[in-house]
Every structure is written in structure tokens, then in C-alpha cells.
């Protein structure tokens, strides 16, 4: 029997003591809500992973939701073409923090065999990715391994305030972009020239405020 902490005097035996960060990570990692961004055959394996035989529920990640507002894990399963990329980015931005991203399969990670004008050569060029799954398509076991590894990562690096995602001024900059783009009522993310102009304007806006 370990020596009792004097601060815990009077508490019953079955009380566990830990860091708040670790406790939050423990809750988060065992209740991931995946957003299935399935565009190709990897999506079929993703469905198999969620189905009863492989049973992703064993790892607490079985609640697939089709609204980014209800999800915290985006699984990009399949090739992403350049017409789809703005959609992918918008869905990623619509997800609430804390959020993570798994790039599933060769196409999502590198473009795979589709080295053509229309196919994005790896989603990590344009959105953040936490875990890559090799394979074409990966077996459900491989995706499950990636989710287990992601759980380890969340447990090791996570903080209750999300400091691991945070850098200075990020919320402010996002708001600045929205305020400038909204009156124009256009989708700036699809126009690279406008995007550069908006970034310059956003910097100016930040400098003023």
C-alpha cells in the first residue's frame, strides 16, 4: 500500500487522481466521432471498418456522422479531385475543435496512380493531416491501427485547452478573413488571385486592429 497523500485524507479508496489534461484526453480518444469523407474504393473499406465484422465500436469510434458539426475526426478515404478540394477544405473548417484528420490510402496521401491534371497530389498539401494509412485500399485492420495510433497521439500530446493546435493570433486571422470575404459574397477559396489579395487585406486589417 502506497503512502497516502495528505491532501487526499478522508477520500474513499476508489477515487483516482490524475492530471486534468490526461483525463480529457482519455475521454476524447475513446469517443472519436468520424466524419466519413469517402470518395472512392477506400470508402468501401471504411464502411467495412465500421460494420459488425471489424467493428470500430470496440475502439469507441463507431458513430459516423454526415455533418461536420458533429464530428471531430475526418477520414479522407479516396482520391480528391481539384473540384472537390474546396469542398474538403470547407468541411474541415466547419468541424469543431478539437479535431483530427486521417488520410486513408495511397490516393488521399499522394494522389496514388492518378498523376493527372485533375487529381490533388496528397491532401496534406492543403489541409493538416495527423495520420496516414498506406494501402490501395488499406484493409480495415490498417485503418483500425491508424485510429489506435491516433488515440496514442491524442493521449500523449493533447491538452484540455487545445494548446497543441494553437499558435498566436489564429482565431483573429480567421475572423479577419471572414469579415472581408463576407460582403463580397463570393467564395474566395476557389480564386487564387483573390485569395492572395484577401490575405494581404487580412494582414492590413490585423495591423489596424
Amino acid at each position, binding site marked *: 500500500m502506497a503512502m497516502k497523500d495528505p491532501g487526499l485524507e478522508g477520500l474513499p479508496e476508489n477515487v483516482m487522481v490524475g492530471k486534468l489534461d490526461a483525463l480529457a484526453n482519455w475521454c476524447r480518444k475513446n469517443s472519436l466521432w468520424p466524419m466519413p469523407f469517402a470518395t472512392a474504393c477506400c470508402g468501401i473499406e471504411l464502411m467495412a471498418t465500421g460494420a459488425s465484422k471489424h467493428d470500430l465500436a470496440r475502439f469507441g469510434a463507431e458513430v459516423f456522422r454526415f455533418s461536420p458539426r458533429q464530428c471531430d475526426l475526418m477520414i479522407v478515404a479516396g482520391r480528391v479531385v481539384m473540384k472537390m478540394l*474546396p469542398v474538403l477544405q470547407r468541411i474541415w473548417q466547419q468541424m469543431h475543435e478539437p479535431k483530427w484528420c486521417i488520410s486513408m490510402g495511397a490516393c488521399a496521401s499522394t494522389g496514388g496512380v492518378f498523376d493527372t491534371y485533375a487529381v*490533388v497530389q496528397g491532401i496534406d498539401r492543403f489541409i493538416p493531416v495527423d495520420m496516414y494509412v498506406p494501402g490501395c485500399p488499406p484493409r480495415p485492420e490498417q485503418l483500425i491501427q491508424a485510429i489506435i495510433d491516433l488515440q496514442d497521439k491524442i493521449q500523449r500530446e493533447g491538452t484540455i485547452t487545445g494548446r497543441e493546435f494553437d499558435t498566436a493570433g489564429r482565431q483573429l486571422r480567421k475572423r479577419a478573413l471572414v469579415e472581408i470575404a463576407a460582403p463580397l459574397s463570393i467564395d474566395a477559396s476557389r480564386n487564387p488571385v483573390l485569395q492572395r489579395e484577401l490575405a494581404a487585406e487580412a494582414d492590413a486589417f490585423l495591423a489596424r486592429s
Partner: protein
Amino acid sequence: MPFIPPPVDDVLAEVNGRFGPLESSLFRGQTRLIVPEARAFEVLEFLKEIGFDLLVDVSCVDYLEYRDPPMQCPSASGHRYGLVYLLAATATNQRLTIRVFVDDPDPTVASVVPLWKAANWLEREVWDLFGIRFTGHPDLRRLVMPEEFTAHPLRKDYPLQGRGERHNFPVITRDRS
């Protein structure tokens, strides 16, 4: 057994009687008729009147740097774009392929949307991927590529990996999402 459509000799006789001799060829039981671009619409209109009521497909081929005359037809050689109209007559089960050749700059042909509503999206796709302009089309916008795309990617002089369009997006990093 492969489907061999009924011969179209009677149709060719009618068309040639009306529009003068047009070059045609036969390949694996399928007849192809080459029509000059200026007369394409009236020939197609006539074919619809005599029973070709179904437009199966409108497509295109870019013959840039093609060595032999397409289909071994002299009147097809030297042209860059070959449009393909696949027609079917539902009453007689006859099939007929119409080829119309157009060239740079500004390859143009009359739209057949007034004849077949099905041509609407088919012609938009050909415009999108080959840059053939269909005059008289009610809504000639891109069909498959993004609106802001500027090239026509199935042309043979367009590089397979594009001109950087697939890299031309804002990058969303952790601190900006």
C-alpha cells in the same frame, strides 16, 4: 453474339440524293458518314426526320499529330477535331455515326439541342474538354471541370499533369483552421 445493326444503305441513298455524295465507310458493320461542318445541322435535321429519333452520344476526337487520315477517309485527313454523333432509329434499330471535322482557330459547329434535348449536356461536355463551340446552344457552360478552369484538358497539346491547376489552392494549416 455481338449485336450487328441492320444495314443503312437506304438511309445513305436518301441522304446522298438530298445533299449530294457524302463520303462514308463501314467498320465492323457500323456505318460512318462524314459531313462538312457547314451542312452538319441540316443533315442531322434530315436524319431525324427520316427516323433517327435517338441521339445516343456526342463526342469528339483530337487528331493532332495523327499519322493516317482518320478512318482511311481522304476527306477526313488534315483536320484536327473530329466530332462524333451516334444516332439510332428506334423503329428500325438502325445505327449511324456522323463525323463532322472542325479546325483551329475557334472550332465551331451548330448545336443540335433544337433537335435533341439530350444534346445539351453532351455538347457542354465536349465544349468543356475539347473547346468546340456550339453555336445556338442555350447554356454553353463547363460541365465537369471547375468554372474557373481555363484550359480544355482533353486536347492533345494539353499536358497530362496540367499546368499547375491542381496545386493552385490556398493551404489551410493548423493555425488557420
